[in-house]
């Protein structure tokens, strides 16, 4: 039981790191980012690459930074043109599917198809209240929690956060009030994919990465986003832990590969009770 709870927390924070970025991108931009989980893989590989020269800590920081830059470039070069057209959601899926294929292909070309372990910032284990953890796991947990709290504080307390929330709620009105919504979209995409990359760099040392590794995480990120209410950051955070707990306890008590489909069942059950997810706006269009 206690072991299950602890595992749920570690898995939950990882799902939150991936799901929050997708939620932010969808909530603010109405863009369905099918390349989202590939940034998790990119984060892992970039950390692996930079760590070779600069050590794992700088590798992690640089990989997050470069993922942020890549997000900005993709938005400016690709998604921005789609915003001027009708049906952004569908078009963005086609674009980001292409980005996803390019990323997976490039990683395969450069690093090969082997499973690679990302070098962790810490190694070894430690024991806390009678349970043994790897130090990297605890490090990943603490940094992830700090990043999530940081994102929520940014949204709640800063002028940029205000602009992001206003754009998310009503972009036409936000523009009328003088907000440069184009900047808001670009920054949101950059921050969103940077969170996925951070997850790759932080959890890659524990879970390994490979070029097509994003697919599983894309599924989790979507479950988290839908369950949370299609755009609610707090809702996605709750959903991440609910999904993790459902999977962990299914594995613990049912066993086998039941955790693979338990997430789908969980999201269906929750949508049955709350059709708009945990914190979906009742009056959303």
């Amino acid at each position, binding site marked *: 039981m206690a072991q299950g709870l602890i595992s749920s927390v570690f898995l939950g924070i990882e799902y939150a790191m991936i799901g929050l970025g997708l939620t932010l991108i969808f909530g603010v931009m109405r863009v369905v980012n099918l390349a989202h989980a590939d940034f998790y893989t990119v984060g892992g590989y970039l950390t692996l690459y930079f760590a070779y020269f600069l050590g794992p800590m700088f590798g992690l920081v640089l990989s997050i930074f470069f993922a942020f830059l890549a997000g900005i470039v993709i938005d400016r070069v690709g998604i921005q043109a789609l915003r001027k057209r009708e049906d952004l959601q569908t078009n963005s899926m086609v674009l980001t599917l292409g980005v996803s294929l390019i990323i997976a292909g490039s990683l395969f070309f450069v690093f090969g198809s082997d499973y690679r372990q990302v070098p962790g910032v810490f190694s070894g284990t430690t024991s806390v209240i009678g349970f043994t953890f790897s130090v990297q796991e605890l490090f990943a947990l603490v940094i992830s929690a700090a990043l999530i709290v940081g994102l929520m504080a940014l949204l709640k307390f800063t002028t940029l956060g205000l602009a992001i929330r*206003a754009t998310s709620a009503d972009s036409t*009105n936000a523009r009328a*009030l003088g*907000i440069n919504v184009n900047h808001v979209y670009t920054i949101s995409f950059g921050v969103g994919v940077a969170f996925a990359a951070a997850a790759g760099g932080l959890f890659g040392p524990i879970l390994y990465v490979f070029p097509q590794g994003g697919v599983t995480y894309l599924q989790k990120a979507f479950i988290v986003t839908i369950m949370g209410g299609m755009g609610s950051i707090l809702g996605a955070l709750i959903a991440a832990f609910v999904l993790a707990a459902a999977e962990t306890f299914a594995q613990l008590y049912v066993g086998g590969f039941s955790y693979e489909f338990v997430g789908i069942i969980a999201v269906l059950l929750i949508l049955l009770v709350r059709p708009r997810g945990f914190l979906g706006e009742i009056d959303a269009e």
Partner: protein
Amino acid sequence: MTYRNKSIVGLDPHEMLNKGVAYMPQGRSVFPAMTVKENLKVGAYSLKDKNKARDNLEKVFGLFPQLKAKQHHRAGFLSGGEQKMIEFGRILMIDPQLILLDEPSVGLAPVLARQTYELVTRIREEKKTFLIVDQNIRGVLEIADYGYVISLGQVRVEGKPEELMEQDQLKNIFIGGNKP
């Protein structure tokens, strides 16, 4: 199109705001999930001077004490009239000289439409100019100083509200009949 003898064609909203021209879109436009204060702060987004933003917030709270009392409430939970106050207060946050209103009464209950016009009259006393486009002719002429009747893209009649209300021309234009 010119404002103070300068062309304003093709300007971005934030450039218009910097010139002191604010625009209020049709229908309800508060951000329901944000608090009252946050809504007002969005209005000051294009202001560079943050001290001025703080002063303007105090002015808006002075004008609408109701909003000050409920500043930490979610805007979506306030009454329709209070939400209109937020919309006007949000525009006043940049202390504009000219305020453009796009059909402020459209889709509103009659009571709320009247409250909206009352708000315009109140804010006008703060030395603000309004340019209002509205189909509610009687309602808007009651508060206006000067009116233009536009039909099919052309100014048909203009004048002081009393004159416009008297003239048969209004009836002709809107009900049909003889072409001007």
